[in-house]
């Protein structure tokens, strides 16, 4: 434990209202702490520069999953375990469930939250690419009220986002508009479980025969933020899925992503693998046209 633990304050407000009031009263002083699976790792390493934390872990206002005909709305504190267990999420938002299943081990999944993952802002996070594919809206609340923002655009740069210091994420709203879309998610990590991703790919497409009517593509670990590939989306809409389309899409991807060399992997590897995953996604669309998520762990079962 490389931090000076006595210097850190942690308070557990009784309600969301109390938490927001404190954030409003003392701007930039308090940071919300949820399950701790990211922040406590920094703490152990002596790298947690902030000193005062608000525990929002037990706030009931931030929990729960609500289903309406148009939306599935997840409370900010929805854990990976809870996401995986939800029947509607499994059926209609399977990539999110798959991402949750591949995040850490079960102990991490029990404490890690979707909002915590978003706010941590790591470009290597596993759920955000899956989320981006579903066009979610994020509800941000403060003492002064709430606002909804599209998740696409929430991250503005490496570890920067539109969230203001006095705001907390309250809900993540997923529109139920992708039923019947072909779905694909693949995380390539340092090993099969408990791994930080080197490249993470999420894709979804609405097919009509062999033509892409609409498509979403998002990647992690290839840019300073989790990236929605707008250029490829634009380029692939209304395209027939063909070998020529694959080559062009891979080239467009190379223009759109900016992978780097780091301790875990290389830019060349990330680029090549991202292109291969894109191709694998498009091939799957070509072969199935329907709803089938790639399961990276299927290899272990075969």
């Amino acid at each position, binding site marked *: 434990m490389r931090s000076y633990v*006595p*210097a850190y304050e942690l308070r*557990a407000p009784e309600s969301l209202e109390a938490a927001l009031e404190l954030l409003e009263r003392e701007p930039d002083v308090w940071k919300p*702490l949820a399950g701790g699976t990211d922040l406590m790792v920094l703490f152990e390493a002596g790298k947690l520069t902030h000193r005062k934390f608000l525990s929002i*872990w037990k706030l009931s206002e931030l929990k729960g999953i609500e289903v309406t005909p148009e939306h599935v709305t997840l409370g900010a504190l929805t854990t990976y375990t809870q996401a995986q267990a939800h029947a509607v999420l499994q059926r209609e938002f399977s990539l999110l469930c798959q991402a949750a299943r591949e995040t850490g081990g079960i102990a*991490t999944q029990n*404490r890690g939250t979707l909002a915590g993952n978003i706010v941590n802002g790591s470009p290597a996070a596993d759920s955000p690419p899956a989320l981006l594919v579903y066009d979610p809206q994020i509800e941000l609340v403060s003492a002064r009220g709430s606002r909804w923002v599209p998740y696409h655009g929430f991250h503005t740069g490496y570890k920067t986002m539109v969230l203001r210091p006095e705001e907390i994420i309250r809900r993540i709203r997923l529109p139920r508009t992708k039923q019947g879309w072909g779905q694909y998610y693949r995380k390539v990590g340092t090993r099969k*479980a408990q791994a930080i991703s080197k490249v993470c790919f999420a894709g979804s497409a609405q097919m009509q025969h062999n033509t892409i009517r609409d498509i979403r593509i998002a990647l992690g670990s290839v840019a300073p933020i989790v990236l929605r590939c707008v250029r490829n989306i634009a380029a692939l809409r209304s395209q027939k899925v063909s070998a020529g389309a694959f080559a062009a899409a891979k080239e467009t991807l190379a223009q759109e992503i900016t992978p780097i060399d780091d301790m875990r992997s290389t830019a060349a590897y990330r680029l090549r693998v991202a292109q291969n995953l894109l191709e694998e996604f498009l091939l799957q669309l070509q072969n199935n046209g329907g709803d089938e998520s790639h399961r990276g762990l299927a290899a272990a079962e075969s």
Partner: protein
Amino acid sequence: MPDRANKVEITCTVNGETHSFKAYPMARLLDVLRQELRLTGTKEGCGEGECGACSVWIDGEIANSCLVPVLQVAGSEIKTIEGIATGEQLHAVQEAFISCGGAQCGICTPGMVMAAVNLLERTPRPSETEIRMGLAGNLCRCTGYMKIFEAVVRACQATGVKV
């Protein structure tokens, strides 16, 4: 001298017993268990939530206690390895670890047993894949995992269906 926050009073249940103590709110649950409560069965292997040697149950869910600030377990029920056996009677998983050779150096064993018991409570008849994934958060350097898998299977068989 660096500034110090105040310790706070925390009450929680550990292995069925209520405990009240003062602790820094961001102190790791792992350290509080080991030092304050002298329950040294839970181990530190990495401090990063990677190895699972610090696994405990919090309100029935398995968690890495090295990543839990103790303030967050106020009012919670915690179970550690010391609470798995019932007096002298070992849990079926513990018996199986002994008979199958699932423990070598033993340092990962408390966390591994916590994970295995938790797995069997959620999934009484796990498939091989479910066993592997259920234990994916617990690293063992000695066994290569083979005899740990055997121990989990043996524990299922020993008790019929539900453990």
